[in-house]
C-alpha cells in the first residue's frame, strides 16, 4: 500500500516536473520516469504483461522516438515556449487535486458493490486471444496504419503542379 | 385508357420524357430538342382533353398508390378543378413551347432550356393531380428549382442573383408551408387531402401554409422576386406568369382550403384584405414602372391578388371567378409576355420610354397586345371581364361590399396602366432605330393567344360549366339565394 501511494505520488511529481522543466530533454526524461512508475503500479496490481509493455514501449520506445525527433528538429524554435504554463501549473495543481479528489470520492460513493465478473478469463492469454480477438485484429490494423502513415508522411513528395 | 392511366400518363410523359431531352441534345445539336419538348408538352395537353368530359359530368376519380406506410401515398384525384387546371396550364404551355422554337437562339444551353421547361410542366401536371400533401409539395418544389434554372438562363451575374432570389423566396415560403403541413399532420394524422376535408386548420398552420402560397404566387410582400424574374427569357416569364408558376399557389390554396381543410370564417375578411392590398400595391407599382416586363410582372401580382380575392371570398361565385381568372389571366398574360418578347427582339430594349409608334411595324403584335391588355383590364367581351366580374360578384355575395369597392378601384388602376403601356409602346411618335415584326411562328402564337382570349369570352359557358362543377365539389358547398339566376 505504501509502495503504491509512493509510486502514485512520485508519478504525479514526475508529471508536474515534466511541466516545469525548461529543457525538453529533461521533460522527456520526466515522462520516462512517469512511465516507469506507472509500470510499477501495474505490477502491483498484477498486470505484469501490461507493466512490461509500459516499461519497454512507453518508457523506452517513445522516449527514443521523442529524443530523435528533438534532435531532428533541433535547429527549430526551441525557445518559443513561454514560462506561463509552468508559472500557473502549481497553483492549478491544487485545483486539479481538489477536483480529482472530489471526483474520485464521489465515484467511490457510487462504486460500492462491484458486479461479480461473469466468465472472467483465467489468464492473460485467454483474455487476449480468446475474448478480445477483435482487439488483436484492431491492433494489427492500427500498427499497419501507423507504419504506412509514417511511411506516407516521409515519402518523396512529387514535384510539380497539380495536373497529371 | 381509363382515367387513372391517363392521369398518370399526363404526369409521366413530360416529367420522365424530359430526361430524354438532354440525352438527345447531347447526341446531336439542332432544333430536335425543341421539337421533342413541344411533342411531349403537346402530348400531355392532348391527353387532358379526355379528362374534360368526365370532369364536366361531375365525376371524381380518386386512387391511391401506396408508397410509404399510411404517411405518403401517391394519391391522385381527377376532378373538375384538376381537369380545369391541367387543361389550362398545358394549353398555354404548349403554345409557349411552340413560340420558343422561334425565340430561343440556338446556343449551348438549348437542351437544358427545353429539358427544364418540359420538367416544369411535368411538375405542374403532377401537382395538379396530387392529393397527398407530400407529393403536392414535391412537385411544388420541382417547379421552384426548374424556375431557378430558367430565370438564370442568360447567365449574367445579376440575373443569376435574381434567379437565386426567386428560388430562395419560393423555397423559403415552401418550407414554412411544409412546417404548416406537418402541424396539420400532427393534429389530424394524415397527409391525404381527402381525409382532411372539412377539418379546421389551426391559426399557426394557416399562416405558415399561406407563407408558401403567397411566396409562390407572388403576393405582397413576398412578391418582389417576380418582377426581378423578368430577366429571364420572355418565354420563361410567360411560362412563370401565365401557365405554371404563380398559378401553383392559387391552385394549392384552392386544393388545400377549398377542397380540403377549412378556414374559420372570422379570418376570411383578413385574408381578403391582404389579397386586396396585394392587388392594389402592385397595381400602383405597375403604374410607376417603365420596364415593360416589370410592368407586366407587377400586373401579374395584381391579378393574382384578384384571383385570391375570388378564392378568399369562399363563395361559389368567387370560386368560379377565380378559376375563370386563372384561365383568362393565363391566356392574356401569356400573350402579353410573348408580345413583350417580340418587342424585345425587335427593339433590343425593355424600356418603354424608348419605344413608341411600333404599331406600324408590328401590327399583329400590337393588336394582340391590346386585346390581351383589355382582357386583363376586364373589358368585355374578352374573357378577363367575366372572370373579374365573377370574382367581385363573389365578394359581394360574401358580404364584403367595401372590399369589393376597393377591388373595383384597383380595376380602374389596371385599366389605366394597361392602356397607358399600350399607348407608350405602340402609339405616338416612333423612338429609337428601326424595328421589325417577330418571326412568323412567334407572331402566330401571339395571335392565337389573342384570339383565344376573345373566344374564351364568347365560349365562356364551357369553362364556366366546368368551374361550376368544381365549385360544387368544394368542401363547403353552399349557395346564396338567387346566385345562379
Amino acid at each position, binding site marked *: 500500500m505504501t509502495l503504491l*501511494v509512493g509510486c*502514485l505520488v512520485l*508519478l*504525479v511529481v514526475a*508529471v*508536474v516536473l*515534466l*511541466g516545469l522543466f525548461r529543457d*525538453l530533454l529533461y521533460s522527456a526524461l520526466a*515522462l520516462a520516469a*512517469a512511465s516507469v512508475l*506507472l509500470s510499477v503500479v*501495474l505490477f502491483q*496490481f*498484477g*498486470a505484469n*504483461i*501490461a507493466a512490461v*509493455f509500459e516499461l519497454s*514501449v*512507453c518508457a523506452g*520506445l*517513445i522516449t527514443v*522516438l*521523442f529524443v530523435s*525527433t528533438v534532435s*531532428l*528538429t533541433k535547429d*527549430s*524554435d526551441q525557445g*518559443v*515556449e513561454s514560462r506561463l*504554463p509552468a508559472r500557473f501549473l502549481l497553483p492549478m*495543481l491544487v485545483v*486539479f*487535486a481538489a477536483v*480529482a*479528489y472530489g*471526483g*474520485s470520492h464521489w*465515484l*467511490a460513493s457510487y*462504486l460500492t458493490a*462491484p458486479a461479480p465478473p461473469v466468465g*472472467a*478469463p*483465467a489468464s492473460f492469454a*485467454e*483474455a*487476449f486471444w480468446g*475474448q*478480445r480477438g477483435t*482487439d488483436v485484429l*484492431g491492433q494489427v490494423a*492500427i*500498427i499497419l496504419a*501507423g507504419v504506412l502513415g*509514417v511511411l506516407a*508522411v*516521409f515519402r518523396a513528395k512529387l514535384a510539380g503542379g497539380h495536373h497529371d | 385508357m381509363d382515367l387513372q392511366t391517363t392521369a398518370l400518363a399526363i404526369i409521366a410523359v413530360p416529367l420522365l420524357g424530359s430526361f430524354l431531352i438532354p440525352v438527345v441534345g447531347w447526341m446531336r445539336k439542332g432544333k430536335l430538342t425543341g421539337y421533342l419538348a413541344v411533342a411531349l408538352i403537346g402530348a400531355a395537353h392532348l391527353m387532358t382533353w379526355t379528362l374534360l368530359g368526365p370532369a364536366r359530368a361531375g365525376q371524381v376519380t380518386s386512387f391511391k398508390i401506396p408508397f410509404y406506410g399510411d404517411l405518403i401515398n401517391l394519391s391522385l384525384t381527377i376532378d373538375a378543378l384538376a381537369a380545369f387546371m391541367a387543361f389550362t396550364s398545358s394549353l398555354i404551355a404548349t403554345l409557349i413551347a411552340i413560340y420558343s422554337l422561334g425565340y430561343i437562339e440556338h446556343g449551348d444551353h438549348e437542351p437544358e432550356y427545353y429539358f427544364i421547361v418540359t420538367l416544369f410542366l411535368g411538375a405542374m401536371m403532377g401537382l395538379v393531380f396530387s392529393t397527398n400533401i407530400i407529393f403536392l409539395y414535391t412537385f411544388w418544389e420541382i417547379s421552384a428549382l426548374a424556375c431557378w434554372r430558367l430565370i438564370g438562363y442568360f447567365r449574367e451575374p445579376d440575373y443569376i442573383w435574381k434567379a437565386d432570389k426567386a428560388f430562395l423566396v419560393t423555397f423559403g415560403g415552401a418550407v414554412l408551408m411544409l412546417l404548416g403541413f406537418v402541424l396539420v399532420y400532427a393534429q389530424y394524422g394524415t397527409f391525404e387531402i381527402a381525409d382532411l376535408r372539412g377539418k379546421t386548420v389551426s391559426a399557426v398552420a394557416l399562416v405558415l401554409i399561406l407563407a408558401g402560397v403567397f411566396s409562390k404566387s407572388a403576393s405582397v410582400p413576398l412578391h418582389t422576386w417576380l418582377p426581378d424574374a423578368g430577366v429571364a427569357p420572355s418565354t420563361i416569364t410567360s411560362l412563370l406568369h401565365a401557365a405554371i408558376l404563380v398559378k401553383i399557389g392559387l391552385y394549392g390554396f384552392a386544393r388545400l382550403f377549398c377542397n380540403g381543410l377549412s378556414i374559420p370564417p372570422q379570418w376570411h375578411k383578413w385574408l381578403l384584405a391582404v389579397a386586396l392590398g396585394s392587388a392594389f400595391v402592385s397595381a400602383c407599382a405597375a403604374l410607376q414602372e417603365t420596364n415593360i416586363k416589370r410592368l407586366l410582372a407587377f400586373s401579374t401580382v395584381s391579378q393574382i391578388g384578384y384571383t385570391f380575392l375570388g378564392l378568399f371570398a369562399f363563395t361559389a361565385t368567387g370560386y368560379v371567378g377565380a378559376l375563370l381568372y386563372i384561365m383568362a389571366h393565363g391566356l392574356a398574360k401569356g400573350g402579353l409576355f410573348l408580345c413583350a418578347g417580340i418587342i424585345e427582339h425587335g427593339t433590343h430594349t425593355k424600356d418603354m420610354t424608348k419605344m413608341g409608334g411600333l404599331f406600324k411595324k408590328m401590327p399583329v403584335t400590337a393588336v394582340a397586345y391590346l386585346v390581351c391588355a383589355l382582357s386583363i383590364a376586364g373589358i368585355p367581351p374578352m374573357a378577363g371581364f367575366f372572370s373579374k366580374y365573377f370574382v367581385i360578384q363573389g365578394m359581394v355575395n360574401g358580404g364584403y361590399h367595401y372590399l369589393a369597392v376597393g377591388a373595383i378601384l384597383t380595376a380602374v388602376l389596371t385599366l389605366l396602366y394597361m392602356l397607358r403601356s399600350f399607348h407608350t409602346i405602340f402609339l405616338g411618335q416612333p423612338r429609337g432605330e428601326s424595328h421589325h415584326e417577330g418571326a412568323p411562328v412567334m407572331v402566330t402564337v401571339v395571335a392565337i393567344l389573342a384570339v383565344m382570349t376573345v373566344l374564351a369570352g364568347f365560349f365562356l359557358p364551357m369553362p364556366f360549366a366546368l368551374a361550376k362543377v368544381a365549385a360544387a365539389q368544394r368542401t363547403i358547398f353552399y349557395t346564396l339565394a338567387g346566385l345562379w339566376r
Partner: protein
Amino acid sequence: MTEAVLGLFFAGFLVFLVGVYLLLSYRNLLRLVLGVEVLAKGVTLVLLGAGAHLGMTTLIQSLIVTFIIVETILAAVMLAIIVVCHRTNLSLDVRMLSRLRG
C-alpha cells in the same frame, strides 16, 4: 471501493487534468506530444482503477496493452508529422500554426 483503487482513480484524474492543462498552455508541438503522453498515463491509471475495482486484472491488462500500442502509434505518427512540419519550414509553435482560420 478499496483505498488502493481510490488512489488510482485520484491519481488518474489528476494526471489527466494536468495533461489537459499542459495541452492547453504549451506552445511547442514537441511538448504537446508530452502532454498527450501525460494524458495517456492518466487514462491508463483510470483504466487500471476500473479493473482493480472489479478484480479483473487479466481483462484490464489486455485493454491496457492495446491502449499502450495505440498510444505509441499515435505518438509515432504525431512525431513523424512534426518532423515533416519542421521540414516544410513551418514553425513548431502551435500558435503560429493558425493559418487556417475564419
